[in-house]
């Protein structure tokens, strides 16, 4: 993957994994952890106490009675504590798992969701944490099922499309109605053509278009995908992933979301295997089950090579938005830094959005965040291509992230001052 051809003038072609991996089931560990991200200083206060018994799929509420999370397991709450992972703080609820997996009978099918009007259906979904990224105005011109992976080396969608075809087909139909879209497009790489065709047909009738996309990173990012489709002219799409659609349909059918998740486990030698994991399982347990060793100086990456975030401990649980767990061994850790930019322009030539990463990096480096805005920093999707090719190994995406954060902070302060 890190090989440049002798004809280096060609842009680097980072290909998504086209291989289908075997799926291994991970048994439940002794405990599961539910994490709730804190917002601001206090954050939502979970209304649970230690010793409380919860059932699989049971709802956990906060002190104001709002739904916070679903319990992924059956067991007793034994600890509530603060958990940090990089720059985010969470309230963690640790559950000691009981022997029997009892499904919660209070969480049931959402009655009549097929006949609900769009507004109340969206409200129902939003309450359960499904925020649909509808284009402004609420009407999309197409619903796109993004069957490319979220990052390099991840290979989960083949298994998801095969195992959950019915659920995904129903979800797409539902989303088409919600977004009042004219078309449903299944965007997939050639390796997934048959799986995509199987979803696009319902009893001999074609319910969706299948669009073959070259599996070149970053085509699988929701912002880029509509532009690389063979079908042109999709301006205001609703892009969804198979995992999210399946989870949403499961929620409507059963009253709680999909609690099992397929993730790709990548060890320090880039050997991969897919694992079916119950949400809330601590990553350390997944690593043990996959016989993946971790040692000092390694990197533990939640996600893939280009966009994953690193964790500083393996006690974080598997959550719905983690598609891969990757160990990068000490010898292949890339160090990036603040070596001055030489102005070679390679970042500009690979940026999928035509931005000027070298300038964004330099402005952020010297705290000129407003200038970053003049150079369209808001259109940066943080795909990581600029930092991937930078000969000076500047941490460009980190600089851009810093500038975005500072700009948001400044805006928040300005809004506060107006109030």
């Amino acid at each position, binding site marked *: 993957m890190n090989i440049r051809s002798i004809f*280096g003038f060609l842009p680097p072609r980072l290909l998504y994994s086209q291989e289908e991996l075997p799926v291994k089931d991970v048994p439940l560990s002794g405990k599961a952890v539910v994490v709730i991200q804190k917002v601001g200083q206090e954050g939502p206060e979970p209304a649970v106490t230690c010793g409380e018994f919860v059932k699989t799929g049971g709802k956990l509420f906060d002190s104001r009675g709002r739904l916070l999370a679903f319990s992924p397991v059956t067991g007793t709450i034994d600890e509530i504590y603060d958990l940090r992972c990089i720059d985010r703080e969470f309230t963690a609820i640790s559950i000691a798992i009981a022997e029997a997996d009892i499904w919660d009978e209070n969480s049931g099918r959402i009655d009549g969701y097929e006949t609900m009007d769009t507004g109340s259906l969206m409200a129902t979904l939003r309450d359960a944490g499904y925020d649909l990224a509808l284009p402004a105005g609420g009407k999309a011109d197409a619903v796109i099922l993004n069957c490319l992976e979220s990052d390099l080396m991840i290979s989960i969608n083949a298994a998801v499309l095969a195992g959950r075809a019915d659920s995904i087909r129903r979800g797409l139909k539902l989303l088409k109605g919600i977004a009042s879209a004219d078309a449903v497009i299944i965007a997939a790489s050639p390796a997934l053509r048959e799986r995509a065709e199987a979803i696009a047909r319902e009893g001999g009738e074609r319910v969706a278009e299948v669009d073959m996309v070259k599996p070149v990173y970053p085509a699988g990012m929701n912002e880029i995908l509509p532009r690389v489709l063979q079908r042109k002219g999709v301006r205001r799409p609703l892009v969804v992933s198979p995992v999210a659609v399946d989870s949403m349909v499961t929620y409507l059918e059963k009253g709680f979301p999909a609690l099992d998740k397929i993730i790709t486990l990548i060890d320090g030698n880039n050997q991969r295997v897919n694992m079916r994991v119950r949400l809330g399982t601590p990553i350390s347990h997944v690593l043990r089950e996959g016989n993946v060793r971790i040692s000092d100086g390694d990197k533990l990456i939640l996600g893939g090579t280009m966009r994953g975030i690193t964790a500083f401990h393996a006690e974080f649980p598997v959550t719905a938005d983690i598609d891969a767990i990757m160990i990068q061994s000490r010898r292949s850790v890339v160090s990036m830094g603040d070596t001055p930019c030489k*102005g070679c322009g390679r970042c500009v030539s690979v940026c999928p959005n035509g931005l000027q990463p070298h300038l964004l990096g330099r402005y952020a480096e010297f705290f000129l965040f407003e200038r970053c805005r003049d150079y369209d920093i808001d259109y940066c999707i943080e795909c990581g291509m600029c930092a991937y090719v930078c000969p000076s190994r500047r941490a460009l995406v980190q600089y851009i992230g810093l500038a975005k954060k500072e700009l948001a902070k400044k805006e928040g302060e300005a809004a506060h001052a107006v109030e």
Partner: protein
Amino acid sequence: MPSNEIRYHNLVVSHAPHAHDGSSFSGAMYTFIAALAPAAVYAVAIYGVHALRVMTLSMAAAMASEFLIQKLFRQPVSVSDGNSMLTGLLFALILPPGVPWWLVVVGSFVAILVGQQIYGGKGGNPFNPVLVGWAAVRLSWGEYINLDYAMINYRLDFSFEYPLSLLRKAGVAGIEGFNYIDLLLGRQVGGMGSSAVLLIALGGIFLILRGHISWRIPASFLAGVAGTALAFWLVSGSLYADPLFHLLTGNIMIGAFFLATEYSSSPVNKTAMVIYGLGCGFLTVLFRSWSNYPDGVFFAILIMNIVNPLLDKIRPAVPGRDKKDGRAP
């Protein structure tokens, strides 16, 4: 935190991406040097140990200057990345072989100090450092690097007269004796390495294939030279030389492939690169035709260096941005 039995490792934490294509600045610099090696060997083959003397002295002086200046300014020393070596080599290749040693040293020193380090080092320089050094010695001690007389003591098997000076002084009639094949093969007087037109061009193409420079600047540079020269030639074929003669003489090739493409002083956006190259080519022929200098390549590049930041304002459209507003939604 959860129970104590957990063994915590000292994990490395960093921002994405977690991979790199393995390219490096020093790799690029040494590739540049490798691309210039054939021309350097050619210079030694033609001019013997004199050429070797100037090249080694120039590279050593440039590297020593960078080392001393960085020590003095308490900057991290980065001599090993090959940038100052390349600066020294390029500076030597555009000089005649017989220049005095102190001129080489002064030129290299000025190139590194005034051309690069006072702007904050590599990547901060608005002008090509090599050309800053060259301009300093050209304007101060022009007679030493005047190509009219520089080769007079050499026994060459080709004309010891500088084609562009002949064109300047005697017009088209003066250059009738030159055979274009000879010019292409480097059998002409000029900078010791820059006169090896074919070797320089091949080195430049190698750099393009390796992805270290964009093809847009050299191509548009050459197109600018050819186009402007063609316009002059069509106006009067007896007053102005034909485009091919322009392309094959002087410093056009080294300028187009190695000097105009210097990272910091050249544009990075596609449209800007083309305008920059065309501008360099246009000014070059303008200087060659109407100015006091026989070859205008270096001044043309220096002038276009000034325009570079302005040109780089021509940016590609950002998908999804409102063109009128220009701001994020």
